[in-house]
């Protein structure tokens, strides 16, 4: 255990304390972004580069934009809550409860069974199974071993997008969400977006492509692509699409739909639901992942852009 690990652990806890203790809403949201960055470093130290990449892109980057925007908008309302601050006794009680839960969890961690149980051999079978030959076991687990789970997770994303859309006013349904920038962008911002978005899109596709054999994959690549689309929207190179746009809805459902159809085809082709015919597993997995990449790249910006806003509101 090195000085880097101990220091990182301390930093993560300190920044988390700050996120909880800060008086200012905006400061707390910014603290959360810093927290996500530090967590990505911790994941690297835990030998989890795939998770680190997801955390950096989704947990810190996209969530950061979401939270900073929300805290700024709520801060602009400047409404004091009517609620009385919690009493000291209640604070103490909550503190004790939190301490109990944390210590119980810590005790469980210290008493983890030895030797540790592991599903890694099964994942190895999934990764090296007949004709798969994927170098990245995590991609194999996501698309093959836990395929149904991953498919349903895409459905959750769609449900969340639907939920966000339906929060808007009735008369706004079908319209476009409010642009991410209300006024004309600065030239520097346009320049940055024009430079960053194409390079970033390339990097997103690279991360997706290497995901079969190295850390990366549809989740991480899709999140980077989504981020680049959001940069373009923030600089007003593009505006958020209307939510009744056919291409948008098709792109949203394409990932899980292709996944499900391929899974059903497995019943006929390979004798089992979500089984892939030997020899074709790798191309099929990449095929499914390509559509998932598209769905993720479309769903995340839709979630950040928010519900459609009526033209009258602007």
């Amino acid at each position: 255990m090195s000085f880097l690990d101990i220091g990182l652990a301390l930093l993560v806890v300190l920044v988390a304390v700050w996120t909880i203790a800060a008086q200012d809403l905006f400061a707390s949201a910014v603290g959360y972004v810093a927290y996500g960055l530090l967590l990505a470093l911790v994941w690297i130290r835990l030998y989890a580069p795939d998770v680190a990449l997801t955390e950096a892109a989704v947990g810190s980057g996209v969530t950061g934009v979401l939270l900073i925007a929300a805290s700024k908008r709520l801060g602009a309302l400047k409404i004091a809550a009517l609620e009385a601050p919690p009493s000291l006794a209640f604070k103490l009680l909550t503190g004790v409860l939190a301490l109990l839960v944390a210590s119980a969890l810590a005790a469980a961690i210290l008493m983890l069974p030895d030797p540790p149980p592991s599903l890694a051999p099964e994942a190895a079978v999934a990764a090296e199974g007949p004709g798969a030959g994927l170098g990245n076991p995590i991609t194999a687990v996501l698309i093959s071993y836990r395929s149904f789970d991953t498919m349903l997770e895409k459905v959750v994303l769609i449900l969340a997008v639907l939920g966000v859309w339906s929060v808007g006013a009735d008369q706004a349904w079908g319209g476009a969400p409010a642009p991410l920038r209300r006024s004309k962008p600065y030239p520097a911002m346009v320049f940055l977006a024009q430079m960053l978005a194409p390079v970033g899109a390339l990097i997103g596709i690279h991360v997706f492509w290497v995901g079969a054999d190295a850390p990366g994959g549809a989740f991480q690549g899709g999140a980077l692509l989504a981020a680049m689309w959001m940069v373009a929207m923030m600089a007003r190179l593009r505006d958020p699409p209307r939510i009744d746009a056919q291409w948008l809805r098709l792109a949203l459902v394409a990932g899980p739909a292709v996944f499900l159809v391929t899974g059903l085809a497995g019943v006929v082709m390979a004798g089992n639901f979500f089984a892939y015919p030997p020899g074709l597993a790798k191309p099929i997995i990449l095929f499914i992942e390509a559509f998932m990449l598209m769905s993720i790249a479309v769903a995340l910006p839709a979630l950040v852009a928010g519900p459609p806003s009526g033209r009258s509101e602007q």
Partner: protein
Amino acid sequence: MNELLLLAAGLIVFTVAIGLARILHGPNEVERLMAVQLLGTGGIAALLLIANATNVPGVDDVALGLALLAPFATIAFVNLVDADEGAAERDLAP
């Protein structure tokens, strides 16, 4: 040599983390953001060092991702500040 690189990674992260005191103090919202941006760059540097010193694969891609996302929070913030003040709003009017 690898130990040395890890040490440098740790030093850089902790140095920029001290800068996070700016999140605590502000006083401007922009300065809180600046502290996070410094942490982001320091984190990228640390990742590059760790990538070189250890055999964890794909760390350089994580650094690449962080480099792409570095200006994100700032752009979002500047957009909202402008919206708040109604500044530059007239620029859009024909």
